[in-house]
């Protein structure tokens, strides 16, 4: 069976690429420390020596649109082109091409359907910064095949938080039962408190530092029950109007497991939003 060698949850800040590659006067004062933190985080994936990456993210109205909106979608293609004109325009993100791990996509789709998730699929998926940002931060060589998993955290009605946790648990079971000798890492990105297009956007910190603190505690201690007891679709409006992206962190807590403390935790308080980085090494995985 395949081996789950690392579980990684991260924010996906689209400005990292620009900040980390800027030089001279264009380089923001927070860039050096940010790069240092990201490179340390990257090492937690490198050490696990993965062969395949399952990448959980969310399309930001790029390919998925309101005339045909899936709640959970798995990419099944040999190749994924990546990043879009408006991401190039606003964030300076480069166009990328990633290989797909089609047999694992097929396995997750078949077994996921049988496990009670009516997963949508795509045979031609252009992925966006929710997946390319963690490639840039964690695996800039972009040399490993991926299975993209998209969640709807964006266009209501949304699945409830519990469903994200359940899908995370199922993804873990499916990776661990995949008949293969590959080493798999599951990487998912979301947000802590975040406001986009609202009055609390682009402040000196995230819109709700108190929520961020609580969220980091839930994630790093694996406190799924505590998190589920407090977080609802309604409650997520309070910390910021784009905070539903936190449900992808909850999905990753489901992958990591109830009560599983993260082996690596780091945060970085930036303008607009707090960065947060977590790595778990499952039992039998490549704990350093």
């Amino acid at each position: 069976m395949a081996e789950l060698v690392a579980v990684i949850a991260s924010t996906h800040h689209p400005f990292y690429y620009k900040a980390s590659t800027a030089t001279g006067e264009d380089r923001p004062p927070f860039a050096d420390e940010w790069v240092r933190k990201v490179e340390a985080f990257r090492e937690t994936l490198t050490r696990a020596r993965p062969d395949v990456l399952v990448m959980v993210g969310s399309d930001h109205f790029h390919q998925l649109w309101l005339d045909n909106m899936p709640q959970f979608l798995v990419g099944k293609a040999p190749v994924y082109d990546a990043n879009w004109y408006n991401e190039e325009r606003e964030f300076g993100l480069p166009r990328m091409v990633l290989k797909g791990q089609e047999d694992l996509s097929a396995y997750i789709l078949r077994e996921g359907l049988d496990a009670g998730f009516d997963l949508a699929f795509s045979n031609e998926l252009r992925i966006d910064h929710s997946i390319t940002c963690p490639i840039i931060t964690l695996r800039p060589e972009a040399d490993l095949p991926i299975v993209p998993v998209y969640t709807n955290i964006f266009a209501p009605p949304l699945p409830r938080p519990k469903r994200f946790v359940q899908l995370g648990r199922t993804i873990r079971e499916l990776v661990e039962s995949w008949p293969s000798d590959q080493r798999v890492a599951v990487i998912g990105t979301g947000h802590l408190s975040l406001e986009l297009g609202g009055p609390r956007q682009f402040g000196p910190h995230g819109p709700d530092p108190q929520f961020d603190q609580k969220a980091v505690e839930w994630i790093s201690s694996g406190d799924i029950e505590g998190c589920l007891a407090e977080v609802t679709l309604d409650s997520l409006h309070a910390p910021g109007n784009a905070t539903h992206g936190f449900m992808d962190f909850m999905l990753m807590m489901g992958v990591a497991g109830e009560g599983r403390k993260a082996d690596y935790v780091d945060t970085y308080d930036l303008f607009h939003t707090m960065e947060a980085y977590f790595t778990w090494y499952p039992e039998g995985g490549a704990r350093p």
Partner: protein
Amino acid sequence: MSKYLLDKFLFTVDRDAELVERYRADPVGTVAWWEAEEANRILNCVGAEQSTWLAFDDEEREALSAHDYPKLFELGAHPFLTLTLFIAMFERDHGEPLGFQKEYARKLAHFSLPYPDIST
């Protein structure tokens, strides 16, 4: 009232560099053209299979024609779509980094929770 159609306008303009410039330069003309020619296009279908029923109401048409993003927020347009497109059109007019984004927040400062519903 059609939040969906507001979102469809923002979505289809934002992804097309030429339309972004056209909407910046001529909002009234672009909105009128778009409503007449594009509003009923189903995005993954050929032209012959278009819809028959989509139109803005006056308030929506006015908000789009005036580049009135606080009004779009009030009408429940998806804030991510509005923000992304308006950054593309107007960030260039502001000298300091994030100048437009901060002004945008200030212009929405009179809104408090719960924000207008964005469900479509």
